[in-house]
């Protein structure tokens, strides 16, 4: 019996090691290539230094998406009926201030899509992350997973949906552009192909480097590499972290969990092997009778 027990314990250890591999493969994941944008990727570029805070984009977004709005009572933040928002950041100590636009970033490797159980949220046409209600049970894991806390849930209805910016895909399909980009009088937010936007941002930095913030003084395009990259890019005159864009590093945030999940369950070998080992141990135990069944 002791041999069996030992081999079984070894089996359990293998399973445990499977989970442990997660720790080890993190380094392997480190070298994984950054996700590439889809070839037809579309996106937006928001330049906070050009934004005057008129909120025309907020109203335009509501109209474009048939969301409730009241001009006299502008929404304070993103919610289930606000997919796009302009907020003001002000430092009371210094005179540092900046407007900030928030909506879905359309990540190159979206955490929400990695989390979603049967693919309600996915990168679909043009790399735009859209929601398919037929696949959503409302578990809200996407809200936990999104590093920018973008997806919103309809809390006040018995038949809720997940709501977030879908880059006005319905308008793009008709040849138009997203409501917010259409409405902006200062071209602070513009619509285009991912490649064009990236080039545009680089040109702006090259022309007026003093205008833009970056760590150690080098102007930075937020979203070029952050969290694996996003199809919505940002330029600003102040630290992005102060504007609500977290410092994520260059790896996609979903990578660690996904790597662990894949190492443990690769080809489903570990679970099947453990099942077989358990079966053998239980069967031998019963046959040897030392398990002392009552019958």
């Amino acid at each position, binding site marked *: 019996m002791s041999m069996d027990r030992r081999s079984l314990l070894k089996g359990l250890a293998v399973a445990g090691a499977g989970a442990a591999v997660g720790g080890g493969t993190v380094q392997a994941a480190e070298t994984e290539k950054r996700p590439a944008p889809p070839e037809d990727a579309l996106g937006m570029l928001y330049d906070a230094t050009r934004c005057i805070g008129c909120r025309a984009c907020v109203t335009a977004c509501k109209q474009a998406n048939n969301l409730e709005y009241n001009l006299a009572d502008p929404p304070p933040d993103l919610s289930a009926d606000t997919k796009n928002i302009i907020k003001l950041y002000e430092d009371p100590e210094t005179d540092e201030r900046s407007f900030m636009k928030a909506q879905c970033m359309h990540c190159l490797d979206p955490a929400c899509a990695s989390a979603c159980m049967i693919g309600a949220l996915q990168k679909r046409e043009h790399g735009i992350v859209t929601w398919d209600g037929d696949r959503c049970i409302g578990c809200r894991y996407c809200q936990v997973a999104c590093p920018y806390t973008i997806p919103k849930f309809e809390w006040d209805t018995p038949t809720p949906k997940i709501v977030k910016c879908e880059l006005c895909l319905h308008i793009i399909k008709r040849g138009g552009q997203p409501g917010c980009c259409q409405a902006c009088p200062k071209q602070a937010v513009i619509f285009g192909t991912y490649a064009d936007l990236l080039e545009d941002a680089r040109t702006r930095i090259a022309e007026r480097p003093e205008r833009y913030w970056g760590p150690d003084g080098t102007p930075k395009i937020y979203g070029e590499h952050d969290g694996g990259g996003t199809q919505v890019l940002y330029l600003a005159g102040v630290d992005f972290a102060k504007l609500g864009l977290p410092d994520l590093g260059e790896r996609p*945030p979903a990578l660690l969990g996904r790597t662990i999940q894949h190492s443990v369950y690769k080809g489903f070998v570990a679970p099947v092997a453990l099942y077989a080992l358990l079966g053998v141990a239980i069967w031998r135990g019963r046959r040897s009778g030392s398990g002392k069944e009552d019958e």
Partner: protein
Amino acid sequence: MEHATAQPVGGPILTRPYRLLLAFIGLWLLILLWRFAAGIGAVSGLTDGYPWGVWIAFDVVTGTALACGGYAIAILCYVLNRGAYHPLVRPALLTSALGYSMAALAIVIDVGRPWFIYRIPISVGKWNLNSALLEVALCVMAYVAVLWIELSPAFMEKWRDTSSSPGLQRLSEVGLRFFDKALVFIVALGVLLPTMHQSSLGTVMLMAGHKLHGLWYTGWIPLLFLLSCVGMGYGVVVWESAVSSRVFGREREDSMLTSLSGAIVVTLVLFLVLRLGDLLISGKIGLMFGSGLMSLLFWIEIALFVIPIVMLVGKGKQRFTTMFRAAFLIVLAGSLYRFDTYIVAYDPGQGWSYFPSLPELLITFGVIGFEIALYVFIVKRYPILAGVRPEAAE
């Protein structure tokens, strides 16, 4: 798997406390009606910043770990082949089956679009294998079924012996024979599934990334969740043995339980080595002391794991009271670890905060109350508990 000694506790069901419990369950059903009529926002403190609250952190994540008694005992009895623990198997399986069923119920209450839950198991082609939550969902669904199958002999024995319907008698006889043949496959599944989903419950929160505090965010989280659930499952079995002996006047399994404590000490020590070792190696010592409330909670967790270890290797380790207290601390330790990981150490920033509302808490208490009501009914009517003293029996 027959337990000659397991027998119904007997006695009346509708005692005064039981009627009180049923009244509370009535209130609970009204609140549930409200939740399904008006939406989750109407009854809970949940927000877009804190989309998961006590329903997930307690009823599902902590509840299923507390329901790991069946898992912990199955490992010891069947896998490590310690037949001596058999009297513990059925009560442990019952609390597990009830605990997991209640977790499933809590999920139906918590998710916004429960009418599509059926699509999770059947949409094989659409499964997102990147999602740890998908694995948890599938495993929990399967495990609820496995647990009730594992427990089914308790019901079938009674029907075979006492049912007035010959059909049910025949069915039970066939069922029992089938169960005896298939036991190996069922029990092995009953160990495999919790190993998978209890670890994945940890992996789930890795997706929270920077929103989860550094003291809890680690690639070892699946193993930490797995180890702690084994300790918690054992702790609950000790409690159950003690409480059911007091309430139903049956003998306690003292010597069996104390002889398990060695294995539990090993499990807890492994947990601590992994938890502290990982933080030391990844250079997070600063976080251990410099994170205010988070540091405090972290050290409370660590203390709650260390104290029972000390108790279970110390002088009084053979005394049941020592073990009972240690079991209490282990359950507390694992529960706090889960609560912190899912709620307290989760910070979406941007000024979000969360505190459960009263109806939200009542829904959680109602789930527990419903579970207790079912437990009492089943042990009084079906052969679950062993060592019932004759005078207490029917």
